[in-house]
């Protein structure tokens, strides 16, 4: 997939052009495009003076980064301990079944992606599902279906 990277120079200009800025730059790219386009990584490597191999190693080390485009809506299912023992795994299965994809994948129409996240700090209302940045607490297998309707 080709991507318009016109915002990239501005992102790179926000940080000191040195190797220690690598994670911060990648975070900003991730936030802007919801993934790390390959061309953006090459440009980052060049500007910060870091080897491309190292950029990739950092990009694949951290969970926050993804090398594939995300759907319009990202469904984040919390599988932290508190959510797990209150049935988080069943919720994840249900969402996967409903959207016909596995966690980490995006639907063919590009509308939804599923991500699992280990704790979002909202344990008191477990289990938690975050759709498009909005927190939903005390989700059940029964009521989760309405959260992921196109």
């Amino acid at each position, binding site marked *: 997939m080709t991507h318009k990277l016109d915002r990239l120079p501005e992102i790179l200009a926000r940080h000191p052009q040195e190797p220690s800025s690598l994670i911060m730059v990648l975070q900003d790219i991730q936030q802007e495009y919801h993934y790390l386009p390959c061309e953006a990584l090459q440009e980052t490597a060049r500007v910060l003076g870091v080897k491309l191999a190292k950029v990739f190693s950092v990009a694949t*080390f951290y969970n926050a980064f993804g090398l594939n485009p995300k759907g319009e809506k990202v469904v984040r299912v919390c599988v932290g301990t508190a959510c797990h023992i209150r049935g988080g795994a069943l919720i994840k299965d249900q969402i996967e079944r409903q959207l016909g994809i596995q966690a980490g994948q995006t639907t063919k129409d590009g509308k939804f992606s599923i991500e699992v996240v280990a704790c979002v*700090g909202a*344990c008191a209302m477990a289990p938690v599902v975050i759709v498009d940045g909005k927190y939903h607490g005390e989700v059940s297998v029964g009521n989760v279906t309405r959260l992921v309707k196109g």
Partner: protein
Amino acid sequence: MKILKTKQLEQLAEEYRKTAGRHKKTVTVCCGTGCLAKGAQKIVEAFEEYLDRCKVRDFTVEAVKKTGCHGFCEQGPLVVIEPQGTVYTRVKPKDAESIIEQSIGHDAVIERLLYTNPADGRKIEKYADIPFYAHQRRIALRNVGKIAPDDIREYIAAGGYQALAKVLTKMTPDQVIEEISKSELRGRGGGGFLTGKKWRTCRNVDSDVRYVICNGDEGDPGAFMDCSIMEGDPHAVLEGMMICAFAVGASEGYIYVREEYPLAVIRLKKAIADCEEYGLLGKSILGADFAFSIRIARGAGAFVCGESSALMRSVAGEMGEPRAKYIHSVVKGLYDHPTVLNNVETFVNVPVIINNGAEWFTKIGVAKNSGTKAFSLVGKVRNTGLIEVAMGTTLREIIYDIGGGIIDGRSFKGVQTGGPSGGCLPAALLDLPVDFDSLTEAGSMMGSGGMIVMDDKTCMVDVARYFLNFLVSESCGKCVPCREGLYQLHKMTVKICEGRGTEEDLIKMEKLANQIVAGSLCGLGKSGSKPLLSTLKYYRDEYLAHIRDRKCPAGVCKNLITYRVNPDLCTGCMVCVKACAYQAIAGRKKEPQVIKEDVCRKCGACVAVCKFNAIDVL
């Protein structure tokens, strides 16, 4: 406005109190993550909308305060009327009007919004009288939920930055370290290392550059104390760091915040900007010969980055791989310079110790475990939320007196502390005092403070499998015992959960787990087998039930359970039939339904929708 002298700090506090005092009453709306998810923002908007329409005497929109987490998340959204201290629970936006008219306009208390004590059905008006709060002691959380975290004047008016002023004007760095040492404050991140000793070591290393880092990575799933502190009282974190920087002689600091906490980043950024504007960060702070700056480093989602050397690599923009610590990071840390790394909760304790003295602090808690500890009390407990208790409080007091016992009247099976590096403790240990040493001795650990309560419907084999799965995906892969060993352990727990395990597996697992402890490079591997070892120790019967009887007593492991309709309870309402995605349930209307075992995928959809508890998991 720039504060140049200590005196101006007091003036500012006084002035702010005066302006705030023109409102006879204030309304505090809890805007912690829990309450926000339950609609707290809509409540704030409802107050604003009402005040836009109607004028109320001595009350404007400025008297509606958005604060951090009040703690009692279970009862949220929470609204408090000050100075009366009337607490309203489970508030809805439509209640805003009656709250203003009755509790602000008049002094009336709205009965229906008060907390009902489940023990006797009595209505309780004030936090201090609610059992959930009555057994707590709040030091680290002193301001969380009380002040508006995005206004520096609120923190100053609450006595903030007085400890910094005291340190800069009346104390030498050595005296500060001495005071912290005397307080016996131990690292709240989990290790429990003496803070004063760490600071002393850092100061004694010969170097031109030193760093102070605040660890806000809080990677333990099931813990959100540090998150609540950073969101609810960011200035206390900064003040603690400043005092530390003065004591050890550092001029640069970093706060490493977990990726999943966007609100904490916003609040900390605002707090840092305000401090720079008020002259509390930068050059010659409060007119003293002390310069300090703080930057935020956002984590990128890696549990191992809670480990000191991995965290410092991550701050430097590299992969978060730990190193062997023949030389500690306090001697050779960030960019190879001496670095103090303390947890969020440790730093917020510092200003209080400076203000009240070490002696005062050591009187709280128990010997060698002074002070308090914040916990996130979650799982199958009735009152979930954020709590803080004196060290040495027993598990029973926390779970039953504060937590209100187990939900749905079920029985207590265990409590997990210390996250993936901790263990599960059984009912026999309910009277164990909660402090660093007692927990470690019992085979768990303090950890950062997640406390996850489990009932008889929690499968302990599944819990061990869950943590191992988490650790396998979070292991950085640098050393073999952790990378390969945890992988094998996980495989064996999966085997047991699927009903294919043998008793020989248990012996193999114990042996391998102990080897991982001995051979791993960092804390992740060294303590990663604790959840497994502790469950094997305290819940061996449950493992044996999976192996010998091919049964999961808790009804969790899918291969070992069956869903069955209880014909005595089923009304034949057919709701489950519609909910089942596999057409596994059939029967006539108004007659008990039947689940076809060969078709059923055990997804739990029928159990979730059945209003009559008519589906048994056997």
